[in-house]
């Protein structure tokens, strides 16, 4: 019986993962229940369970959610959308490129779901109004949000977990990931434009279409003016948001942890905007269930880690091959493939001890840090693979359905799989280039 006991936490963990995948119950409740079960069964003491929760990650996530909630309430994102849409002068190609790039840039600094909620409705409205199928743009914006989010520490939750676990700074992510992310963005957007050129070609010679397009833009501007934007609120939101991002980039000089910078920014903005946005309303915007999900996962993984199985896994990998390039490719593609189908948060939480183990085994290799970048690229980019691969995909397709554009699993897969594989190939090429040439 005793020989089975080390496998019991693993069994509980995988049962929890399967229940999460089946989406029958709220995932935060599943991990909380599984986590407390680990404590009740004695695999972790209550103190160890509390220690296992990475509060730096939780605080960083919560602060960013609060910051973004206040900024959204100020109307700054709607204002930005309307300004940008006016710049496109109704040209479908410009609308496509502008909003794809906007999604990528925003998702690098906001969470992907917020980005999709901010950008997608206006683009669906525009493309629908132009009598064109908005699906290509919906797909592209989802891809852009996942690819763009890969570039920074705060862009995608797996990066926050990786950064927190390995002590990687905001700048570390940008310096190491901007090349594959930028190439991936351009290639993915290029493929989508080429595949849908017929609906994106310029309409400057077609007066009726052009007039409908510009009228749509005028209408959006008119509706926006009615929103009664409060300048002071917008200025405060933008200023604090920019200062927080500046704080992240100046982290090596300031020597302040990202979660402290984010919490300071969020608290300051909430205080400055307390007249325009009441804290009780703002706290409703924070996704507490997500934060509980993260906390429960940390406890679950800590219990599994105690069994030593994760350390053994890393030993097995290193004993199978000592070739770092092979291990890196293995991490990128396994992470990518798993993230296509399963929630990438539990996966990355499990992979952290494994990668740490491999890093310890290969200590001395000058390129050992690439293990973390390979993990980040794999989990974040792989999320594009299927309709359930990332939260942005689920929210994006749900928004599309509500607007009358239903997207099936297979319809999404047909577009996403080639794009995801291409982007993972780019990531692999980048990582290998770093190993062999730098």
């Amino acid at each position, binding site marked *: 019986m005793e020989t089975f006991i080390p496998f019991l936490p693993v069994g509980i963990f995988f049962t929890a993962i399967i229940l999460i995948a089946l989406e029958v119950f709220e995932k935060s409740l599943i991990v909380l229940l599984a986590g407390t079960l680990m404590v009740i069964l004695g695999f972790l003491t209550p103190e160890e369970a509390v220690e296992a929760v990475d509060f730096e990650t939780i605080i960083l996530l919560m602060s960013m959610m609060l910051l973004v909630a206040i900024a959204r309430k100020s109307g700054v994102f709607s204002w930005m959308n309307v300004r940008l849409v006016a710049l496109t002068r109704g040209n479908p190609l410009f609308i496509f490129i502008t909003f794809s790039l906007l999604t990528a840039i925003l998702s690098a600094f906001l969470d992907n779901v917020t980005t999709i909620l901010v950008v997608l409705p206006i683009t669906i409205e525009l493309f629908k109004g132009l009598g064109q199928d908005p699906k290509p743009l919906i797909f592209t914006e989802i891809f852009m949000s996942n690819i763009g989010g890969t570039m920074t520490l705060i862009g995608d939750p797996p990066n926050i977990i990786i950064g927190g676990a390995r002590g990687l700074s905001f700048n570390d992510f940008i310096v190491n990931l901007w090349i594959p992310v930028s190439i991936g963005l351009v290639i993915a957007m290029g493929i989508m434009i080429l595949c849908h050129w017929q609906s994106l070609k*310029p309409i400057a010679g077609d007066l009726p279409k052009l007039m409908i397009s510009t009228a749509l833009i005028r209408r959006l501007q008119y*509706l926006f003016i009615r929103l009664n934007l409060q300048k002071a609120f917008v200025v405060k939101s933008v200023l604090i948001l920019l200062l927080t991002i500046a704080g992240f980039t100046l982290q090596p000089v300031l020597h302040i942890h990202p979660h402290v910078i984010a919490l300071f920014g969020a608290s300051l903005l909430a205080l400055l905007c307390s007249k325009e946005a009441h804290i009780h309303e703002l706290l409703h915007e924070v996704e507490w269930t997500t934060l509980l999900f993260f906390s429960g996962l940390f406890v679950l993984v800590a219990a599994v880690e105690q069994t030593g199985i994760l350390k053994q896994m890393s030993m097995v990998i290193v004993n199978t091959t000592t070739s770092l390039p092979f291990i890196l490719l293995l991490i990128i593609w396994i992470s990518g493939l798993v993230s296509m189908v399963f929630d990438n948060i539990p996966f990355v939480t499990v992979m952290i001890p494994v990668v740490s183990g491999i890093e310890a085994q290969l200590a001395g290799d000058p390129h050992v840090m690439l293990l973390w970048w390979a993990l980040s690229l794999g989990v974040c980019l792989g999320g594009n693979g299927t309709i359930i691969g990332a939260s942005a995909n689920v929210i994006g397709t749900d928004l599309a359905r509500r607007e009358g554009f239903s997207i099936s699993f297979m319809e999404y897969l047909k577009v996403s799989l080639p794009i995801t594989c291409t982007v993972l190939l780019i990531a692999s090429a980048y990582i290998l280039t770093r190993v062999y040439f730098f």
Partner: protein
Amino acid sequence: MQNTIRQFSHLLRQTEMEIGTRDMSLLILRALQDAIRVFSGKTVESFIKKLDCTIAIACSTEPKFALVIDTLYQFKDSIVTYIPEMPTAQHPFADHRHTLLQCIDRIIAHAEDDTLLLLSHARSLDMRGKTILIHDHSHTVQDVLWTLRQDKQDFTVVVAEQDHEKTMGNIESLTDHGLSFTVVPSYMLSNVEKEVDACFIGGLTLKSTYDFVVDTGTSAIISECRLHRIPVYVFMTTSKFSLWKSTKKETVQVHRHRRSHPTRAITFDRLKFSHDRVPLSSIDTVVTEKGVHSAREIKRIYTHRLKERLQQEKRSLLTIMDEGGST
């Protein structure tokens, strides 16, 4: 072409609901200016052919928006007036882009002048000490009320409630202009009808059947006003007249919604209609930019404008047929 007509119809319907007919036509003119700024055609003549297609599309929308059609025709006429030797010579589009934009500026200014003229004629109405009933979400009616108040006329306003957003729009406008008002649900108006002295209506259009197209619910209010001999005034510029032969039913869109009972497992269909039609004969006075008219005078003005439009259509048709022949 059918797809473009569908898109334009949808856009106009949405915009009209949100901002009203007058602002919608101005929005379309501004959008046309934006389009002219990026239009890539080589000559003004090619632009005019495209403009004729645009007019043909505007004339085919469901429903047709008379004011939009009218402004597009005005624009076409003004191009011919302001560009010399039209349409006998080929004019490079880039050289005349600015002139075309100016033409639209003039139409916008002219539309504003028409509204100002209408308001100046409305000044002749004596509403001192009276209670005015309003219902529809008409910017013109709001402007008339504001003009009368500026003339130191003291009156009170009763707002008959309708769609939430439109009622709120009326409340915002009245509040912004400092006009005192009370709000009464439309179906409870019978309780205040004795206090009402006049009813102000802003029409969407006047059709060849001599029916005004108005916001839904207006028909019932006008019937009640007639029953109690409350004078009904319609405020509308003649550019809003539907200058084509129309049938009774067109212009009214039906929206079917599936609704659920809040507490029981019952679902049912709920129909909503976009507009009402009210016969010209039910209206006591119509105020336009040309003056204060009786129903008979309005019929005469309508007939005159219809003749003008038929000539404009004939000219446009010839251009489209020429294009068909050349291609």
